[in-house]
């Protein structure tokens, strides 16, 4: 009961340690140390994240091109953004990209993690693990440069490989659907290793007795994975999908290098629009308005996920 009383008296969350009447020299020393230790991180976060978020919101209400003085615009930037077909298309593209990229990334990572978790010599397992993880250490920008050649319609290796199994050359980077598909594939190729590592870690955390019990009950193969492995892996699946979605909504390098948003606006993403508005056209107000909308979108999608996850995520 004392706990609730303390909380009732103090509106701010109290420090977990019992509040001594007279802080000893050691306590004061520890508080001073805490202040010193936290200063770089907290000051940095305030200056380079908290203040800029507020700044973005304020800036989104102004017209500003750096050269002239900023002029108050009210909701005009938002109205303009909602009337701008390029911006609307970029949100649609980003959502389409997110759905396909995250679904594909999680599916590939899950299947490979389950497969790598099966019977095989240790050395072989670590070879596979390293191979799937390797693209993560490469730069998205330079790997996209490489992919531009691989996806070339006439002399690219991708179409050559498809030709071997009798598929006609695909205009990857020059048709709308082809370009989006290529951007998704390149992104997934580089990113699935992240989810893969999460899943491998999550699978190792599942006590093996549970699988043995399931086998004794007659569950086998796919059925066992669906009814036993997946529910037990669901906390990891949640983390992988939350991180995957947050990252996918911020996609930039791949479409910027591979297609520069084209053909037309078919692969232009929200972040590309922010970049072009702010740093190519010097429309800082509009760029900030798009940024604020992206922020709201990310928050909303993440909140929705945590809400949905209450039904599907099982903690051991």
């Amino acid at each position, binding site marked *: 009961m004392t706990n609730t009383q303390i909380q009732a008296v103090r509106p701010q969350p109290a420090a977990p340690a019992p509040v001594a009447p007279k802080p000893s020299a050691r306590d004061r020393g520890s508080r001073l140390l805490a202040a010193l230790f936290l200063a770089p991180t907290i000051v940095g976060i305030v200056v*380079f994240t908290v203040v800029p978020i507020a700044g973005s919101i304020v800036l989104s209400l102004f017209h500003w091109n750096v050269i002239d003085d900023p002029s108050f615009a009210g909701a005009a930037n938002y109205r303009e953004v909602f009337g701008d077909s390029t911006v609307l298309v970029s949100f649609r593209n980003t959502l389409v990209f997110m759905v396909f990229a995250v679904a594909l990334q999680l599916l590939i990572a899950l299947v490979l993690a389950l497969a790598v978790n*099966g019977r095989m010599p240790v050395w072989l397992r670590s070879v596979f*693990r390293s191979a799937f993880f390797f693209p993560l250490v490469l730069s998205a920008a*330079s790997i996209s440069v490489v992919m531009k050649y691989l996806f070339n319609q006439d002399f690219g290796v991708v179409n*050559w490989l498809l030709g071997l199994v009798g598929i006609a050359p695909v205009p990857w980077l020059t048709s709308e659907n082809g370009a989006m598909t290529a951007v998704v594939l390149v992104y997934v190729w580089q990113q699935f290793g992240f989810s893969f590592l999460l899943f491998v*870690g999550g699978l190792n955390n599942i006590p093996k007795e549970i699988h043995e019990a399931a086998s004794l009950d007659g569950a086998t*193969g796919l059925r066992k994975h669906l009814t036993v492995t997946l529910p037990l892996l669901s906390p990891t699946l949640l983390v992988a999908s939350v991180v995957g979605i947050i990252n996918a909504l911020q996609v930039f390098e791949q479409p910027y290098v591979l297609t520069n948003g084209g053909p037309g606006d078919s692969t232009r993403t929200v972040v590309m629009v922010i970049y072009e508005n702010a740093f190519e056209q010097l429309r800082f107000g509009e760029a900030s308005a798009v940024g604020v909308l992206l922020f709201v979108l990310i928050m909303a999608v993440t909140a929705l996920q945590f809400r949905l996850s209450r039904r599907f995520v099982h903690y051991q």
Partner: protein
Amino acid sequence: MSQATMNLSRTRHTLAPWARIAGLTVCALLTLGPVIWTVSTSLRTPAESFDLPPKIIPTNPTTEAYSGVFDQIDVWLLALNSTLVTALIAVGQMITAGLAGYAFARLEFRFKKPLFGLVLATMMVPLQVTIVPVFLVLKSMGLTDTLLGLIIPAFPTAFGTFLMRQYFLGMPKDLGEAAMLDGCGPWRTFRSVYAPLATPGLAIVGVLAFNYHWNEFFRPLILETSGQNYTLPLGLVSLQGNLGTGSISVVLAGVVLSMIPAVAVFVIGQRPLREGITSAGVNR
């Protein structure tokens, strides 16, 4: 039991093991394929660079393309810039995350929970949403188009702080209490007891920072306007723009050059990198 059978895994699949391993091998080749193609094409002559089927072993291996890269862009300058930026950020993050992580795990102070909540919340804020005001803040400090402008904002790391807090929480509390009984103040307890034990955790933060910032593209693209401040990824993409000669070997040789440190980190820092990523999913 032999070593191999001892380490056989727990899950039993209906799929025959050889079919599973064959499938995994195909997937691994598809994953590494683009990298293998890049290395092999960078060693071909321009005339052979588009050969199909792609010859993995070039018929006339040549390093011509590599000298082409050095002719076109100042590789040494770009590499120096990238190294400076990445190394300073990595060291800076190890310091800030180590200190803040320790404070959150082991020290008592007011507003601990809300402050930690603030740190965690910033993990969710996309860089692109804050980039315009950050650009303006840096401009007012006179740091746009400088390497310092890339380095300083990257010092605080929410993820690193979270990771180090978990790391310090995992260490036995008795150690510090024993040191306190021996008369160590809070600083001595940190300095001589906990900090030395934190080295592996700090290595994770350092390797993750190195990998991320070595490959970083968006912030340098916005902040660095003059060529002398470019980092490698920027230089490479500009290399591609300047070319148009039809010889892709040169571009790919540049890509290979920029991969070398990333691959070195992969080989040396594979374990810390993997642990850093895995702990993101498991330590909740």
